[in-house]
């Protein structure tokens, strides 16, 4: 919906537009829908799978998608997963970008918890971290929208706002020739999301829930990206901490489809991700 914003439409108009577009398209779909058919095409070759596109903004799910899946298995009390405020006066750009991703994931959690004050606090912290990264101006309007929607309890709109905020941060980073930071924002968000879900599951374990932690391709994608970062950035203390834990995290989320991790294994994953997030949030990480 960023496109519609750019051509001058406000959030409410966009939602109205979506609804109307939805009705129009639904009529067309209803008229042409067919019964579910069995797949009849040939399997993909290993070459096709290897060369398939893998894109940050499409191949890596948002925290909201993971939370949507978990919400179907029960009614998590997301307020239990809200963490205390983190330091925002960090000196390393890599550390800032990782924590910015973590904060955006925190935003989704606050929205699920329907905690307006937390949403506003997180929005403020995002703006604070965005400034030294040179992307604050690009998300000024997002900061205002987060506050406005939080005050009015517009939780669905807030989920969209956090996704848009993340996308605009990354777009601004690319425009600023800081492409490498994009990977770190994604990585920070994914680690924080995995920490939260594994914490919830370690306290409310079910096999179905534990299967949601299966994310081998995501961590492989992120590991490859980290390995391809410039040497100077890879040597950043924050990145060293990430690299030292990423292999263990990859092992924890790479179990077979039909063999969910035990509650002990979920707790191990939670310890790994929780320790890492705590380390990343510490000042003086350069």
């Amino acid at each position, binding site marked *: *919906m960023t*496109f*519609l914003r750019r051509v001058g439409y406000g959030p409410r*108009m966009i939602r*109205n*537009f*979506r609804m*109307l*577009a*939805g*009705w*129009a*398209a*639904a009529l*067309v*779909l209803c008229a*042409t*829908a*067919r019964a*579910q058919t*069995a*797949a*009849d*095409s040939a*399997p*993909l070759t*290993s070459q*096709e*799978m290897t*060369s*398939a*596109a*893998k*894109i*940050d*903004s*499409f*191949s*890596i*799910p*948002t925290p909201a*998608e993971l939370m*949507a*899946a978990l919400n*179907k*298995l029960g009614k998590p009390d997301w307020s239990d997963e809200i963490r205390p405020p983190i330091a925002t006066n960090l000196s390393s750009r890599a550390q800032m970008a990782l924590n910015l991703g973590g904060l955006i994931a925190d935003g989704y959690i606050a929205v699920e918890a329907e905690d307006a004050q937390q949403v506003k606090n997180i929005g403020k912290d995002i703006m604070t971290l965005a400034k030294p990264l040179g992307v604050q101006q690009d998300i000024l309007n997002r900061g205002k929208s987060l506050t406005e929607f939080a005050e009015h309890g517009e939780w*669905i709109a807030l*989920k*969209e706002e956090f*996704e848009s905020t993340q*996308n605009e941060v990354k777009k601004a980073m690319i425009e600023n020739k800081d492409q490498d930071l994009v990977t770190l924002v994604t990585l920070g968000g994914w680690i924080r999301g995995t920490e939260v879900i594994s914490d919830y599951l370690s306290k409310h374990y079910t096999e*179905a829930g534990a*299967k*949601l932690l*299966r*994310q*081998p*391709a*995501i961590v492989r994608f992120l590991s490859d990206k980290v390995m391809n970062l410039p040497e100077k950035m890879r040597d950043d203390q924050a990145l060293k901490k990430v690299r030292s834990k990423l292999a263990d995290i990859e092992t924890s989320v790479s179990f077979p*489809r039909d063999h969910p991790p035990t509650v002990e294994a979920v707790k191990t994953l939670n310890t790994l991700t929780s320790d890492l997030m705590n380390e990343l949030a510490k000042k003086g990480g350069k």
Partner: protein
Amino acid sequence: MKRELLIFTLGAAVLSGPLCAETNDEPTARNAAYSVAGAFTNDGFSIREGHWTGRIEVGKPKIVQVNLYAGNQYWFSIGTTPAAKKVSLSIYDETGKPLPSEPYADNGKAAAGFSPEASGPYFVKVDETEGDPCTFCLLYSYK
């Protein structure tokens, strides 16, 4: 009353063509993809803002990896520039095995509905089966 008039005006814009005149192919394909994906928002699906664009032609499909969660339902929606006459979407598991999906296709647009039984990586193949080389945009929605 003004609000209803505004909604009607926007709707007319949707039904009559692209929201705004741009010569770039990507916005055209993206608008087409959103017009398909919009159908699913009434059923509670959220549209992922990220999208995948590129060029395809008959006999030269493109494939993208996605990561899906068991329990969620997904709709993949593709829009193209007018050069495409027919396009299709196919979904595969991480071993490359084709999977059944709910199909929809109409004049250079298509969608595929899918509910994964296991969390993990999947592949989506974008194929043009009739028409000239075109630009496409792939989106997905989930709930």
